[in-house]
């Protein structure tokens, strides 16, 4: 058992609080907004060992921890935090990795405030334990220690699994299945691994080195990775089933939505995917050293209120925009972005135009966007999502001068696999249908999870889905238990 007083004592030494106040939630030091506006380096520096121990000491080690219930992958939160409080960092990361193989990523991109931290009992009276920051700390500590341990791997089962897509869902499935002793091969369409973690989430929020380190661990676990491999085109799912015992589809929500309003195809109007991919994956911020160019707008408007919108607006700031606007049709309360991202955007000078919605884009003779026309909104009755529905205010039209517009209103499922695998059934918008219990698609031996099933959601939900699916695939092998494996079939031919 951890002694909450331990934390108190340490805090007294380092933070020198007044009187006998409760130790406050420890802030995480970060780059000054004025400086970080001009660079792509990660914004928060993370906790020091001392601060982490202080923060971990705040956890009161509930017998029935509610935080764990809030976690999609059910990390033993009090467990790993107790070990940090005790200074046993190695023990803590081992505890963490029992349930979460990618803590450096989750610690950075999970919406903790709506998952684990919102359930923290301390939050009722004080501020919740900074679970996300501690998760990030312990993962970063391990990487900095230079000794990233490869999880123990069960003895080979002889089963072969093809994992399509190396984003959060695919990485999780691959790691879990490899740990169970199955042979895993990852198929990635792009030239780098990580999916949305590398093409979508910017360096200042998700350093590529971290993704690479996690992928390197997978390789050390024996997972083979094929790049430039577009499943559906180069090899269909049916063909993969000829040489694998199961196929997992984690191809994500990779088809950007547009608004369908006039002028959307003007030069200077981008999907957030394109804007971010140019900057992140293709390093267009380093043009002309990198060959991929991107339009460096002076007045940039990003439409949307999610994390992707914040990432885009903040990227525009770093690329030298004089004005970077967020255009969102509801109010700040309804914004789906992580609170931290909204704060960071505001600190960096992003201007929020709330309760307003574009109705058309206006271009010049060269077909380049120059202005957008907007309509003010007010909040009406709650809609199906429970959020109050924005209703246009008649006659409230106004225009805004812009030379770049980034549409960040979400993504549909990538169509390539459903297009080329007719017996995988999808819902109306193309999301793959899976059985809730077996996680199997309508095609025997083919499984799916992440955004291709859920629609555009979060990294951690994709990981949670990946974890459940890995277990389901393992169960499938045991129930199905054909005496011969794909390897044996190939050998017999």
């Amino acid at each position, binding site marked *: 058992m951890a002694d909450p007083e331990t934390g108190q004592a340490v805090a007294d030494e380092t933070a020198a609080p007044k009187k006998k106040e409760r130790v406050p939630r420890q802030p995480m030091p970060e780059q000054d907004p004025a400086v970080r506006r001009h660079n792509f380096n990660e914004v928060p520096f993370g906790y020091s060992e001392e601060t982490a121990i202080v923060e971990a000491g705040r956890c009161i080690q509930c017998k029935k921890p509610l935080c764990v219930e809030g976690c999609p992958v059910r990390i033993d939160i009090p467990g790993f935090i107790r070990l940090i409080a005790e200074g046993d960092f190695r023990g803590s990361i081992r505890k963490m990795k029992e349930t979460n193989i990618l803590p450096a990523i989750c610690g950075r991109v999970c919406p903790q405030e709506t998952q684990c931290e919102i359930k923290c009992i301390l939050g009722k009276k004080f501020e919740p334990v900074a679970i996300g920051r501690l998760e990030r700390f312990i993962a970063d500590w391990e990487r900095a220690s230079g000794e990233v341990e490869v999880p123990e791997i069960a003895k080979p089962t002889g089963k072969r699994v093809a994992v399509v897509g190396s984003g959060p869902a695919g990485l999780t499935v691959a790691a879990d299945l490899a740990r169970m002793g199955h042979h895993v091969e990852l198929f990635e369409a*792009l030239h780098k691994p990580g999916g949305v973690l590398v*093409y979508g989430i910017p360096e200042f929020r998700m350093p590529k080195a971290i993704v690479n380190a996690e992928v390197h661990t997978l390789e050390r676990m024996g997972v083979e990775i094929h790049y430039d491999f577009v499943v559906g085109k180069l090899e269909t799912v049916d063909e993969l089933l000829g040489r694998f015992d199961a196929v997992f589809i984690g191809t994500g929500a990779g088809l950007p939505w547009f608004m369908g309003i006039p002028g*959307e*195809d003007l*030069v200077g109007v*981008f999907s957030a995917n394109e804007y971010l991919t140019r900057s992140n994956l293709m390093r267009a911020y380093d043009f*002309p050293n990198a060959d*991929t160019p991107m339009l460096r707008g002076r007045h940039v408007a990003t439409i949307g209120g999610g994390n992707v919108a914040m990432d885009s607006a903040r990227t525009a700031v770093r690329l030298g925009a004089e004005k970077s606007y967020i255009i969102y049709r509801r109010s700040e309360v309804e914004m789906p972005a992580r609170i931290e991202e909204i704060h960071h955007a505001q600190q960096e000078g992003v201007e929020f135009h709330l309760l307003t919605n574009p109705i058309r884009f206006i271009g010049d003779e060269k*077909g380049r966007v120059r202005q957008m026309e907007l309509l003010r909104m007010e909040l009406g009755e709650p809609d199906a999502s429970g959020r109050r529905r924005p209703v246009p205010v008649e006659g409230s039209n106004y225009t805004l001068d812009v030379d770049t517009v980034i549409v960040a209103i979400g993504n549909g499922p990538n169509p390539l696999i459903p297009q080329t695998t007719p017996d995988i059934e999808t819902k109306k918008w193309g999301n793959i249908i899976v059985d809730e219990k077996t996680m199997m698609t309508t095609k025997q031996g083919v499984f799916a999870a992440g955004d291709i099933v859920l629609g555009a959601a979060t990294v951690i939900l994709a990981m949670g889905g990946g974890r459940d699916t890995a277990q389901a695939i393992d169960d499938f092998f045991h129930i199905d238990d054909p005496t011969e494996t794909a390897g044996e079939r190939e050998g017999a031919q």
Partner: protein
Amino acid sequence: MYKILMHERITADVYRMVVEAPLIARKRRAGQFVVIRIDENGERIPLTIGDADAEAGTITLVYQTVGKTTEHLSTREVGDFLMDVVGPLGKPTEIRNYGTTLCVGGGIGNAPLLPIVQALSAAGNKVVTVIGARTKGLLILENELRAVSSELIVCTDDGSYGRKALVTEPVREVCERERVDLCVAIGPPIMMKKVSEATKEYEVHTVVSLNSIMIDGTGMCGGCRVTVGGETRFTCVDGPEFDGHQVDFDQLMKRLNAYKEYEQESLERWRRMREEEAATHAETECRLVEEIEKVKQHG
């Protein structure tokens, strides 16, 4: 890594390259393309697959030098590697026996046209092929196309070879003289636009193959979007072939010019770097020769 097995210049600014890519060679069908990246700093560009040899495990890429990346590509030598070749992407051409087909190629468009003409002929179509170029020296794949077409009409803008005409002239003539069941036009956007306008008068269904700017080629970025029949479509996953009578070519041309200034900057910088490199190299060589002379003189 994808090895370059053959590389040759076929006109002033058009090159043919054979690359080792066994899986793509086995899978590709007429009308499909690949996305390539030369090296770690390279951009991703789409190139149509001109030909493939499934047995040898190779694909043929025919490209024109238009900017930094293609000019850089033209300096790659046999035995060098391309860092990435992704494909086959896009939907293949719908090949069946239509009856009489009219295939129109302009400039570099003859390269992607060739496998389509081959496939249409093999499917039993009568294929009338019309090809054009600004001038004789820029005409490519004439003999290859002649070999697989029922009839080949060649024209040049300046009359230096074949007929002095734009391709639309013979296109109209063929439509006048016989019933055409399908037209396939591939070339610069302005040429595809004009051909589509011409065939529309004769109500001949016309397929064009678009060369939009794209990054991933798998539907993810949406950079290649084009308006077809009033709807936004993605060239990479919905195309590259669309109904020419429905495509908004004017918009396509504007979008293709989106990065013009950047492309110019990149190209000029690269040429400058090449020159500097060559100068340094020449200087080093001179010194080397001098040193050798010295050593010789001093015995």
